[in-house]
C-alpha cells in the first residue's frame, strides 16, 4: 500500500478553510399531522425536535422546550430525507480510470464537483444523501462516497469517505475491448467478454486472499473481508447467478446493483441475504427477458420474496410511487428510498430514518408521500431548510 507523506500543517490549513462557518445552536420543534419515522409505526400527529442539526427527540406528545422555535406543518407529512445508494452526480473528470481494469483505489471522494447541478436536482426531488459511485467500465471500479446534497461547505456535506467498493459483474467492462489476432501495442485492454470479467474478478480475489500485492489491494481486501460493503453491478439473470456463485466461493456478502432481472432469482437472493439496489425503474420501456408489464412490479416481487430492496438513480419519490402503484407495499416503498439504502451503505446510524441522534434530514410533504399529486414543501439537510418554492434562497445552495 502506498503511504503519502502528508505535511500536516498545510493539510490542517486546507481543512480549516473547507470547514466553513459553524452554524449557531438552534432548537426547533417540527409538528405535523403525520410523521413517518420508518423505524417505527406512523405517528399521527407527531413531533420532531431538532437541535443543532440533529434529531433530539421524536414522538407524538413532545412539548417544545423553553426558547425553542415551533414550526407547525398543519396537515403536512414529515419523513426522512431520501437516500440514493447508487448515483454518479458530482463525479468529475471521468467516471472510470479505464487505462487499467482493476482500480480499487479510485476514490470518488477525491474528484467531486460540489457545484454539480445534479445535486440541486436531487435535493429538489427530496434526496438528501447520495452515494457517488464510479462507473461500470472497470472490473473493479473503485470506491463510492456518500455526501449530502446541500450544505455550506464540502466538509459538512461528507457522510462517508470511501463507503462501498464497486465491482462490475456485467458486460460493461468489455465494452470497447476486442481481442486481436496479434498484439500491435504493449497493452491490450481486457477483458473482451463476460467470461473474462468473471475470470478477472476471480483471479484478483484469489490474489488478494493469498496476500499477493496488487495496487491499492487493501481496499479490495477490506471489501472481501466484509469490513466494507461490496456493490456488484449485476443486471441480468446470468450476472446475478454468477454473483451468487462467487459469493459462495469467497464467502462474500455483496449488494447487487442494477438487478433488472432479479425477479428470476428472487428466492435465491433472499436465501443468500443479498440486498438489491435497483437501478432506475421506468415505465416507458419494458425491461427483463419477458418484456411484459410484470416486470414493473420488480420491486414488489423481490420484497415479497424477502429481498431487501432499495431504489436508486434519482427521482426516488417518483420511483417509490411507481413501485407502490404496481405492487410494492406502502411500507416497503418508503423503506426502499430511506432506511434500506442507508443500511445497505451501513450509514443507518446517521441517515435514513427519523430517530434520536440521527442527522436532521427531513422532507415536509403536503400529504401522503406515495400519492402522485403530493408536493414537497421543503427539504431539510442537517437541520437547514431548503424551500422549494421560494426563489430567494439561491445563495444557500452554493456548495
Amino acid at each position, binding site marked *: 500500500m502506498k503511504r503519502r507523506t502528508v505535511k500536516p500543517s498545510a493539510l490542517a490549513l486546507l481543512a480549516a478553510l473547507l470547514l466553513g462557518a459553524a452554524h449557531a445552536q438552534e432548537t426547533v420543534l417540527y409538528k405535523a399531522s403525520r410523521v413517518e419515522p420508518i423505524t417505527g409505526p406512523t405517528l399521527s400527529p407527531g413531533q420532531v425536535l431538532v437541535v443543532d442539526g440533529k434529531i433530539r427527540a421524536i414522538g407524538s406528545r413532545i412539548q417544545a422546550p423553553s426558547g425553542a422555535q415551533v414550526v407547525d406543518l398543519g396537515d403536512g407529512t414529515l419523513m426522512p430525507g431520501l437516500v440514493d445508494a447508487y448515483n454518479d452526480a458530482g463525479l468529475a473528470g471521468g467516471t472510470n480510470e479505464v487505462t487499467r481494469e482493476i482500480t480499487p483505489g479510485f476514490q470518488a471522494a477525491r474528484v467531486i464537483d460540489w457545484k454539480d447541478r445534479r445535486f440541486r436536482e436531487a435535493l429538489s426531488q427530496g434526496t438528501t444523501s447520495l452515494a457517488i459511485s464510479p462507473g461500470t467500465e472497470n472490473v473493479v471500479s473503485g470506491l463510492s462516497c456518500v455526501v449530502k446534497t446541500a450544505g455550506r461547505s464540502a466538509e459538512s456535506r461528507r457522510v462517508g469517505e470511501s463507503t462501498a467498493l464497486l465491482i462490475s459483474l456485467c458486460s460493461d467492462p468489455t465494452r470497447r475491448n476486442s481481442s486481436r489476432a496479434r498484439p500491435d501495442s504493449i497493452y491490450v485492454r481486457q477483458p473482451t467478454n463476460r467470461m473474462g470479467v468473471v475470470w478477472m474478478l476471480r483471479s484478483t480475489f484469489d490474489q488478494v486472499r493469498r496476500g499477493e500485492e496488487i495496487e491499492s489491494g487493501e481496499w479490495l481486501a477490506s471489501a472481501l473481508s466484509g469490513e466494507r460493503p461490496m456493490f456488484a453491478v449485476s443486471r441480468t439473470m446470468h450476472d446475478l447467478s454468477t454473483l451468487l456463485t462467487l459469493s459462495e466461493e469467497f464467502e462474500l456478502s455483496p449488494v447487487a446493483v442494477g438487478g433488472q432481472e432479479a425477479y428470476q432469482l428472487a428466492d435465491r437472493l433472499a436465501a443468500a441475504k443479498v440486498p438489491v439496489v435497483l437501478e432506475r425503474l421506468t415505465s416507458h420501456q419494458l425491461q427483463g427477458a419477458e418484456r411484459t408489464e410484470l416486470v414493473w412490479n420488480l420491486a414488489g416481487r423481490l420484497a415479497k420474496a424477502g429481498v431487501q430492496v432499495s431504489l436508486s438513480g434519482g427521482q426516488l419519490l*417518483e420511483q417509490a410511487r411507481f413501485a407502490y402503484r404496481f405492487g410494492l407495499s406502502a411500507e416497503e416503498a418508503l423503506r426502499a428510498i430511506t432506511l434500506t439504502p442507508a443500511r445497505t451503505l451501513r450509514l443507518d446510524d446517521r441517515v435514513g430514518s427519523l430517530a434520536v441522534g440521527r442527522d436532521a434530514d427531513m422532507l415536509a410533504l403536503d400529504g401522503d408521500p406515495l400519492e402522485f399529486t403530493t408536493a414537497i414543501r421543503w427539504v431539510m439537510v442537517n437541520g437547514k431548510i431548503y424551500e422549494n418554492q421560494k426563489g430567494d434562497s*439561491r445563495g444557500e445552495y452554493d456548495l
Partner: protein
Amino acid sequence: MQVRRFRFTAILGSSFLAFATLLLTVSDAVSAPQPDPEVLVLKGARIHTMTERGTITGTIIVRDGKITAIGADLPSPSNAREIALDGTTIVPGLIDSRSSLWLTRAALNETSTRAALTILDGVDPFLEDWREVARQGVTAVFVQPSAGSSLGGLGAVLRVAPAQSVETLVIRSDAALQASLGITGSTSRERFGQFQKLQRALKSVKDGKTPEAEEEKEEEASPDEGQRGGFPRGRTGRGGARGAGGRGSAPTQPDRTKELLEKVIAREIPLRIEVHHPDTLMWALSLVTEFDIRLVLEGVSVPGGALPSLAELRTPVVLGPVWETGKAPSYREARADDWLSRVTESTGPWALGTFASEGRSSRLLRLHAAAAIAAGLEPDAVLRALTIDAARILGVDDTIGSIAPGMSADLAVFAGDPLDPSVSARLVLSQGRIVFEGNRGSRASTSRATIDLPESLPASYALRSDHVLRDGELEAATLWVRDGKIAGLGNSIEIPEGTPVFELGKGVITPGLVAAHATLGLSASSNDGTESDASQLRAIDVADPSCDAAQALLEGGFITVALPPASTTTSAGVVGALRLGAPETTWHPSIAGQFVMAASARTDQRFPASLFGQGELLGDLFAGRAPATRLYLPPSAQEALVAERKRNVRAVVSGERVALIQAQTHAEISAALRLIAEHELRASLVGPTEIIDHLESLRALGVGLIAGPISGTDFDRVADQLAAASTMGIPIAFAGESPEEIRATAALAVEAGMPRDRALLGLTRTAAQLTGMPRGTASLSIGQPADLVIWNASPLNLSARPVRVIVGGNVVDPQQ
C-alpha cells in the same frame, strides 16, 4: 415525471445564473423592470451630444422615456429624480450595427435563407444575454437573417432592454433587406452567379414582373407584421395593394419577395449587401447605378481596385469585426492590416459591427472600437460610427444616436473614456429606464498622447514622462539608460551632463510586458504524448523567437514570454522564459514545471484517463515515486530519462521552480489545491474558470492565477470572478497568444472591477513572479536590462499602441 415544477431548480439549474446573481448582489444591481421614473435629471457630466452642439458639460432632462432638454445649466423640474454624474462622460447609447442579440439558436443556425424571411420571427424577447450587452453601454443592435445566400431577408434594429414582447424591442422592423455576395463560393465565377441572380431579381421587379422562382416557393403563408402581432396565421395575406398579382404564385398568396424588392426599388428600404472581395464590391456598386437603389455595404474586407468607385459613390458601409482572435473565415482571410483606415478614408458614412455569432458577444463592441483606434482611426470618428453614423445608416437617427430634445433617452454614462473598454459604465438608460447601474472599476488615468522619439538611441540617454509604471502606479519620473541597462530612475536623479533627455510628456513608459503563458503556436513541437510523465521535456528547446506569433507579441509590447510545453500530458515538462528582441533570446531555460489537471491531458489510450488518475500520478511524482518508463530504450537510456524526469520534478517540489498547474473546473481546481497543500508547492493555476468557491483557499495557500483569454462567447462571470479574486489580494497574470488578446483580458477584468494597479502589475511584474522568472524581471529597477515599452496611453486602454519597444536600451526595428 415531475408532479410539481420547482422554481428553485428552474432558476438555479443554471449555475451560471446563480453565480451571476451572487456577484451582482455584491457589487452591482441590474435593475428589474421598474416603474418608469417620471422625470430624470442627469447632472454634471460631460456630454457628447453627437449633434452640432458638440460636447458640452451640463444637464440632460428625461421625461417619459424621451430627452426633453439638454443644456449647460438647466433648472430641475420639481419631483424629478436627480442623479449627480460629475466627472463622468455621457454618450448616446452605443449601437452594434451587426449583431446576433435576441436571436434564437435556430435563427442563428438558419441556412436556407430567402428574401421573404423577417428576422423578427427569429427573435426571442426572453433571452437573458441583453444584460451583459447593456452593461457595456450598448443600447441598440441591428440583426438580420444569416448571410448565407444571395437574398436573405429583412433585418431590424432592436433595443437592448428587458422586453415583454418582440414589439417592445423594435426600433425599426424594416431597416434593410439583406443580401450577400461571396460568403459562399470560392471562385469569382461562382460569386458572379450569385450576383446575376440578385440582379435578375431586381430587374424583373423593376420591369413590373415577379422575380423568377428561385427560393420563394413557400410552404406556409408569408409572415408579415400583422400576423406577428398575434393574429392567427391564415392562408390569406394582408390586403396590400399590389401584392397579389404575381405570375406563378397562387392568387391568395401575396409575393412577399416581390413586395420587398419593390420597396428597395422605390428607395423605401436599403439593400444591404455583405461583400468582401473586390469583384463583388464592384458588382454591388453597379446596382446603385443600374437601379438607383439605396445601398449599404457590409464587410468590405478586400476592396482592392473597387475602392475608387466606393469613394465616388460614397456608399455607407458597416465594417467589422475589427477585434478578432482565432482564425478568420476564408472570405476574410486576405484582409490587409491597414484595411480599416483605407476603407474609412474613401467611403461615406461608416458604422462598426461586432459581426458576432453569439448574442452576448455584442458586449465587446467597445473592444472593436478600441482596436479601430489602435489601428490609427480618429477617436471622434469611431464614436460617431457607434452612435450617430450608425443610426443614420440604419435609418433610426430620428430616434437614437444623438442627444437632443425629442430623441429617445437611450444613454450610456461612463466613468471615463467611453471608447476605453477597461472603463466601466456607471449608468445605462433605455427609453429613460435604467437598465444598468454600477459602480465598478476605477477611472482611466491616461489619455492618448503624441510622442516624439528618434528611431535609434545613443548608448546613454534619459526618458522623462508623467506616466512611468512603478509599483502598479503611473508616476512622473526620469529613467536613465546606460549601456542597455537601467542606470537610474526617480523624480529627480543625477544624470551626467551631456546625456540626451527625451521628453515624452503624457506618454506611458512600462517595462516590457509579460505573456504569462503563450505557446507561440509551438505546442505541436513540444508535444510528446507517449507517456503521461513527460517531465523531461523543455519547451525552450523548441522555441523559435523569429516565428510570427513571437514577432507579433514583441511588436505589441510583450518582451518576456513564459513558454510552456504542450498540455497533452499530465506532467508536461519544463516551462522556459524568452526575452524577445534580445540578442540572446533565452531569458531562463527553466522557470517552472507545467502540470495538467485539465481535460486536455486525459486520454483513454494511457494512464491517466480520469481526473482521479491525474491526481494520483502527480501525487506519486511529487512524493518522489516516478513511474518506470515503458519506452523501448536501452536500460541506460531509460535510467537517464527517468533521472532527468525526477530532477525536474524535484526542482518543483523543492520550491526552486514554480508549479504551473492547468486546472479549469471546480473539481480540477479542488484537486490541484489539494496537491499544492500536500506538497507545499509554490504554484500558480493556469486557465481557471470556476474559482469563486476557492478564493479563500487560494489566498491562504498563496496561489496565483494566470487567467486564460476571455473570448466573445464567455459570460461576464469570467471577468467578474477575476475581479473578485483580485480584490481579495490574489495575484493575477494573463495568458494568451496575441498581445491584443492578453491586454483585452486585463482590460475586461478591470472593467469588471479589478484594481488598475493590480492589472498593470499582472501584465508585468506579477506575471514574472507567478511564472517563476528571475527576480527583477519586468520591473523598472536599477541594474535590470532596459526592456521598455513606450505607449501613447496606458496599456490597459486597448486603443493605446506601443510607440516604441526598447530591448536592452535599443529600439526594436519591426522590420528585422
